[in-house]
């Protein structure tokens, strides 16, 4: 069973003095997934990721990566080869050029000769830094440094990526670029665990999410399940005619739970509990009853609303 799991933790606990940063966490991430970790600041996300990257020793509990036990010493070079970790502060060396920096890490991971050169060019192209390869790192912008950090993380072709707040402090364009790179990596079959506060980004990238609070993993499910369970279907309706007539028609449908008039006065946001077929049925009935509809837009509540609705706001 563990073989298809990229990450499995057993009762993973980390304590700093009296403060329990990660408490009895049983995390399971399937191979090939993009797993999003969300939670308020101080919930234990960074500590959990650091333990998975073997840069922090667990107080108790065990970590298995692809079925192998992760231990913090130099006895597991193969496991180390499979992990790529990008912390939120991505420290770099200012005295090196972009090329020399990546070349150094490629050599640390034992990439040889032509394969190394090819990989360097591929990675530089992926993170769009090819033109900057002979520039000193100290001259790069924050976004470029972030991308260089990511390039360092993937230089050795890891199969598991651990990204801690990778888009914090980036402008919208840099964030978009970063998202595109992650999608490309996912396409290559990497398992990615990513923590972020930008929930719209996670909703776009992830296949599963986990919610952390007070050091506990309080929720861990596929995005699909989460939506099914917690997200309500909403329909935006706009009419050219009388809004009251539309409301009257809606009252006849038992699957319509409640509605809210949108600011412009000609549209309603309706909470609808039916299936896709039932929403088609509703549309047909509205058209047949002569309502001059200009918009019938079915959508789901987004990840942010679900997260806020769950009320996980406590830090540990």
């Amino acid at each position: 069973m563990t073989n298809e799991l990229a990450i499995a933790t057993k009762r993973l606990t980390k304590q700093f003095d009296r403060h329990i940063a990660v408490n009895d966490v049983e995390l399971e991430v399937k191979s090939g997934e993009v797993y999003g970790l969300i939670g308020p600041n101080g919930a234990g996300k960074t500590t959990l990721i650091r333990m998975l990257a073997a840069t922090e020793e667990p107080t108790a509990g065990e970590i298995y990566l692809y079925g192998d036990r992760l231990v913090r010493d130099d006895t597991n070079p193969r496991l180390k080869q499979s992990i790529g970790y990008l912390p939120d502060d991505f420290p770099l060396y200012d005295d090196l050029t972009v090329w020399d920096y990546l070349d150094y890490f490629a050599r640390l991971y034992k990439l040889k000769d032509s394969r190394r050169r090819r990989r360097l060019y591929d990675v530089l192209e992926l993170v769009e830094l090819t033109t900057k390869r002979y520039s000193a790192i100290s001259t790069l912008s924050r976004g470029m440094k972030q991308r260089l950090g990511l390039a360092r993380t993937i230089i050795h072709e890891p199969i598991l990526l651990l990204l801690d707040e990778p888009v914090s402090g980036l402008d919208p364009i840099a964030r978009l670029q970063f998202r595109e790179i992650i999608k490309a990596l996912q396409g290559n079959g990497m398992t990615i665990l990513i923590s972020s506060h930008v929930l719209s980004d996670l909703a776009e990238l992830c296949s599963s999410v986990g919610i952390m609070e007070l050091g506990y993993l309080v929720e861990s499910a596929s995005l699909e399940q989460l939506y099914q369970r917690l997200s309500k279907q909403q329909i935006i309706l706009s009419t050219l005619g009388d809004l009251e007539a539309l409301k009257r028609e809606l009252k006849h449908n038992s699957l319509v739970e409640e509605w809210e008039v949108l600011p412009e006065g000609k549209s309603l946001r309706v909470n609808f509990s039916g299936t896709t077929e039932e929403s088609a049925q509703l549309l047909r009935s509205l058209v047949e009853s002569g309502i001059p509809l200009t918009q019938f837009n079915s959508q789901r509540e987004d990840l942010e609303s679900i997260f806020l609705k769950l009320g996980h706001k406590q830090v540990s």
Partner: protein
Amino acid sequence: MKKTENIWWIDKLGDWNPQLLREIKGRLKTRNIAIAAIISAIGQILFFLYYQGQLPSLLHWTKASSDRYCTGFGYPDSHQLHYGRKCLVDSLGQVQIDWQLWWLDLFVWSSIFGIFLLLVVGTYMLVADLSKEESRGTIEFIRMSPQSAKSILSGKILGVPILLYLVIALGVPLNFASGLNAGIPIGLILSFYGVLIAGCAFFYSAALLLGLVNFGLAGFKPWLGAVAVLVFLFVMTGILMHDSLGYATDWLALFYPGTGLFYLVDAASLDSKVGYLEFKDLAVSLWYGKSLFSNSWSGIGFILFNLGLWTYWIWQGLLRRFHNPISTVLSKQQSYWISGSFIIITLGFTLQSDNRYGEFQSLILQQLSLLIVLLLLTAAIAPHRQTLLDWARYRHQVSPQQRRSLLKDLIWGEKSPSTLALALCLLLTTGYTSLCLMLSPLAKTDKMTAFYGVIVSATIVLVYGAIAQLMLFMKTPKRAVWASTALGALTILPLLCLAIFGINPNDKPWMFLLSMMPMLGAEYAATQTILLSLLGQWLAIALVGFQMTKQLQKAGESETKALFSAR
């Protein structure tokens, strides 16, 4: 533009040791190389010109004048040739000069200058580099790579001081040529370089360890390391230049690469004309009665063995610490081996004659160095506060295969408190010292006095060690600084007070029994006084031990309570 990746030897070097290549790429830039070359050239020119200026010149020559580099008889006392000899003039009217002596001076002092430069500056560079990597967090990425700690750290040693190596390498031709002109055989010059390299390996490894150990004074560490090395080199140069060998401290001379120079000066066959590093001073040093230093190969071999042994132990700490920065520097098992190696080597230099006064002085110095080494060892095996807390709380959760009795855990365990292990180290050193005392040529009553002194010394170390472990368990983040300050106060203050009030060991021996040098008091104290002070010290150990146990128990309990309340 900078397609360095195409040069084959760089490629090969990088494959062999990526860390070394990284250091070279970051440092060997044209501007830096030029600066290093200019510094080396100017330094050598100034050095050479200074010695040129020391030569006697015809300008100031009178019939009565004398000089170190003249060739006549000694003046005024013919035995003190090195103070100056009468200057003679040849048929062409030139002052005759003892060029061999001049070259020897140039060789010896440029070598000593090189030792200072290499060790002090190199130590600073390595500690500063590693502290920076540690504080910025870049070292995490290196730790995560599949490279071995050995490859990374040797890359650091070879690469970080690369500009310093360049400065030194440019100075080697002058040094080597002056050595040859002084009549020193090539083999000996090369063996001195060998000793210097071994010395660098030892001090640089120690520097890396200092860089990897966190004790709350990150910015201060490089200075601490460099100043410590500087003071050591100054003291050792002073001791060796002024024939102060023949004590337990001779062990320290084995760490000073300049000790090798004795043989080189001797090989130049200039005898009493030289006036420093005289071979007869080194030859008085005995090790278990053997005159190891009287032969150049056995002497240099012993120096290399000692440097190699301690470099090996430092590397054990480095390898442990590199991959797990919160582990103790040494395991308990290693601490037993280290105290064993230490006592065997240092005791060899003590108890070498039946001269009571000399023997006691030697033993006092040996016990003092034992105290320092054991306190350092306590710091190296004392677990982190968090580790102790986890040990107290989660020891019961360890799987049945790994579980062992509390006693075994305290003797061998990685995470258990260190006091019992320190007691075992002391048992080892005291046992061996007592055995050597029995076999020593001292009189029976002197043996008993020395034996009591050794026992009191051991207990006092245990008191200090237990206090250190207790303080390292404090909650404040600066506990390492507090513990060192407290120990510093405990060790130095009592002796300082005794010195200020002018109290002598023969007046109030019991006061000395409670200081860091109880041997001073043991010489004059009555047996009852010694036993009474031992009783007091054991009481103190029991008290500190009881306090520690209580705190550990409380740490284990209170967390469970905290967990329940959190749920």
